C-alpha cells in the first residue's frame, strides 16, 4: 500500500516535470515576488502585493503580454532577510519564474541577490537602499529613489532657505540608519553642519528627551527626521508639545496621508521629499507623470476602497518596467530581458521618468522627488 502511494507520487512528479519542460509560447509568463506583507514593513509590502495582484489581473484581462498570460507567484518574508533568501531559492528552483519583482526592504533584497545572480534572472527591487545599485549589479534594478537622494533633496531645500546648522534625529531601523549614513555623507556637499545627531527606536513611544536635547543645541536652525511608520508621527506630536518652532523636515519614508492622520494638527508645516503620486492632482497639466499617477490612484481606490500609497506605486513601476522590457525583448529570454531593462529610456511611471543605463540601474534623478509641505491637513507642493 505504502509502496504504491510512493510510486504514484513519483509518477505524478514526472508528469509535472515533463509538463514543465514542454514549454511553448502559450505558457504563462511567471512573475515572482517576495514581499514583506506582514511584519514591521507590512505597510510597504501590503500595498505592493495588492498593486501587483490588481495589475496582473488587469493585464491578463486585456490579453496578456505578447499573447501570453501573466502568472504572479508571491511569498511573504515578513521583513526577514533569511526568509527572503529561502523564498528566492524557491522562486528560482521550483517555480522557475521568468523575472522577479520585489524585495520590499533593502535587507531582503540584498539577501536574495546572490541567488538571483547565480540563476541569471532579472530582478527589480522595490527597496530604497543605495547598496542595491551601487556598485551596479548586473541582474538587479530598482524603482524607488535612494535615501541619499532624499537627503540631497532636503538639503537642497534647506540651502534655498539659508539653513546651515541642522539637527538629525534618525530611527534605529535599517531604513533610518542607512538614511543617517547617507545624510552624514552628503551634508558637507551642501555646506550643512549636523550640530546634533540623535536616534530613537522604531517602537519608541516618546521622543521628547531627544527633542529637548536637540532644541537646546546652540545655533540649530532646523531638524531633519529620518524614519518610517509611526515613529515620525510621534516625533511630530512631541515637537508640537515642546513648542519647538524650528522648521521640521521628514524623509520620504512617511510620505503618505497616514502621517497627517496620525500626527493630526502637529503635522502642520512639516516638509518632506516625496514621489509625485502623493500630489498627483496638484501637478501641472504638462507634467508627464500626472496621467499615469492619477490613473493608478483611481484604479487602486476603486478596487481596494483605500487610498493608493507611494509604496504601492513602486510596485506598479516595477511591474510595468518588467512588462515593458519583456515586450521589447520579444519574449522571456533572461539575457534579452535584462538588456531591454537596461535600455529603458523615457519610461513614464508613477514615481518619475525612468532612464536606465549600464551604469545606472535605477534611472531616476532628483527632479522625480517633489518637496511637499503639510498645509491645513493636506499635502501641497512646497514653494
Amino acid at each position, binding site marked *: 500500500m505504502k509502496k504504491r502511494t510512493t510510486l504514484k507520487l513519483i509518477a505524478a512528479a514526472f508528469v509535472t516535470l515533463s509538463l514543465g519542460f514542454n514549454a511553448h509560447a502559450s505558457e504563462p509568463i511567471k512573475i515572482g515576488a517576495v514581499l514583506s506583507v*506582514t511584519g*514591521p514593513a*507590512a*505597510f510597504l509590502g*501590503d500595498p505592493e502585493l495588492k498593486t501587483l495582484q490588481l495589475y496582473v489581473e488587469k493585464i491578463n484581462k486585456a490579453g496578456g503580454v505578447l499573447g501570453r498570460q501573466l502568472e504572479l507567484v508571491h511569498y511573504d518574508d515578513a521583513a526577514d532577510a533569511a526568509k527572503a533568501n529561502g523564498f528566492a531559492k524557491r522562486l528560482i528552483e521550483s517555480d522557475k519564474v521568468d523575472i522577479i519583482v520585489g524585495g520590499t526592504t533593502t535587507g531582503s533584497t540584498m539577501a536574495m541577490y546572490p541567488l538571483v545572480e547565480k540563476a541569471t534572472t532579472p530582478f527589480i527591487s522595490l527597496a530604497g537602499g543605495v547598496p542595491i545599485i551601487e556598485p551596479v549589479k548586473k541582474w538587479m534594478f530598482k524603482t524607488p529613489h535612494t535615501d541619499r537622494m532624499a537627503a540631497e533633496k532636503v538639503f537642497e531645500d534647506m540651502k534655498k532657505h539659508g539653513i546651515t546648522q541642522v539637527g538629525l534625529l534618525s530611527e*534605529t531601523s535599517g531604513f533610518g540608519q542607512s538614511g543617517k549614513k547617507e545624510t552624514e555623507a552628503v551634508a558637507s556637499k551642501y555646506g550643512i553642519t549636523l550640530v546634533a545627531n*540623535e*536616534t*530613537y*527606536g522604531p*517602537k519608541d*513611544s*516618546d521622543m*521628547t*528627551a*531627544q527633542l*529637548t*536635547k536637540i532644541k*537646546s543645541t546652540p545655533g540649530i536652525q532646523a531638524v531633519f527626521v529620518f524614519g518610517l*511608520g*509611526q515613529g515620525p*508621527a*510621534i516625533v511630530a*506630536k512631541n515637537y*508640537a*508639545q*515642546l*513648542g519647538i518652532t524650528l522648521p521640521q523636515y521628514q524623509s520620504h519614508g512617511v510620505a503618505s496621508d*497616514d502621517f497627517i*492622520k*496620525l500626527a*493630526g*494638527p*502637529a503635522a502642520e508645516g512639516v516638509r518632506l521629499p516625496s514621489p509625485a503620486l502623493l500630489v498627483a492632482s496638484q501637478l501641472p497639466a504638462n507634467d508627464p507623470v500626472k496621467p499615469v499617477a492619477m490613473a493608478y490612484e483611481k484604479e487602486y481606490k476603486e478596487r481596494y476602497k483605500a487610498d493608493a500609497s507611494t509604496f504601492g506605486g513602486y510596485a506598479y513601476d516595477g511591474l510595468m518596467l518588467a512588462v515593458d522590457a519583456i515586450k521589447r525583448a520579444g519574449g522571456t529570454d533572461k539575457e534579452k530581458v535584462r538588456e531591454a531593462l537596461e535600455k529603458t529610456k523615457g519610461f513614464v511611471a508613477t514615481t518619475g521618468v525612468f532612464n536606465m543605463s549600464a551604469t545606472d540601474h535605477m534611472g531616476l534623478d532628483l527632479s522625480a522627488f517633489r518637496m511637499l509641505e503639510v498645509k491645513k491637513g493636506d499635502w501641497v507642493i512646497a514653494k
Partner: protein
Amino acid sequence: MLAQFLQFLFSGVTIGATYALAALGFTLIYNASNVINFAQGEFIMLGGMLTAFFIQSGLPLPMAILLAIAIPALVGLLVEKLAIEPARHADTVTLIIITIGVSLVIRGVTQVWLGKDTHSIPAFSGNDPIHILGATLLPQSLWVLGVTAAVVTALWWFFSRTLMGKAILATSFNRTAAQLVGINTNFVLLISFALSAALGALGGILVTPITLTSADVGIMLGLKGFVAAVLGGLGSGLGAVVGGLLVGIAEAMAAGYISSAYKDAVPFVIILAILFFMPRGLFGARVTERV
C-alpha cells in the same frame, strides 16, 4: 537646566506609567496562577485598536472605550477557558508557552480583521500641553498617571479586603489547599484572566493618544511591562508601578544626558543589577524555596 531635567522626568514618567500598567496585568495573573502571561501585551494592543476601530465606525468615545474594555475581557475569559484550563495540570512552563501561542493568535487575528495600519484616537482632554517651570506635560499623561494610581489602589483593596481577592491569593499559594477550604479555583483563574485583560485594555486605551497603536505594539509593551514587573518584584502591585516608573525614567534620563543610542540598554543593566543583588525584585516577597 532645571527645565531640561523636568522635561526628561515628565517624559520618563509618561512612558513609565505605560510600562506600569502593563506590569500590573502580569502581576494579577501571576498572583492567581504563577503563570507569566505573555499574551498581556496583546490585551493592551486590543484596547487601543478596538477603541480606534469603534471611533472610526462612528461610536462616541465613552461607548467605544466601554466596548474596548469589555471585548478584551471576554477574550481573556475565552483564553482561560479554551487554552489554559484544558492544560491546567501541566507545568507552569508549559502554561507560559501556551500564553505565547495565544499572543500570536490574537495578534494574527487582529491583523487580518483590523488591518496592519497604525491608528490614533483623540486625547481625552485636548492636546494643549501644560507648562510647568519651562517643561511641558500633555494632559493625557495626567490621565495615564491618575488612572494607574486609581487602579493600584483598587487592586490593593481587592486583594487585601475582599473575599474574592483573598481567594485568588490563596489559590496562588496552594491550589489544592484552596480547593479543600471550598474555593472554586477554576472560577478564580477565569476571573483573574478577565480582570487582567480588562486592565491591559484600559491601559492600552489610555496611552493610545500619546503613543499611537497598531496590531504589533503588544510585543514591545509586553516585554517592557515584564521587565518592569520583574524589577518591582513579581506579584507586587506597588512593585509593578515603581518598576515601570523606574524603567521609564531611566530610559528618558539616559536618552537626555548620555545618548539616545544607549537608551534601551539602561533598563537591562538595571535589571541585571537588581537580579544579581535582589533576585526577588524591589518589592518581592521574601520567601525561601524549600528543596
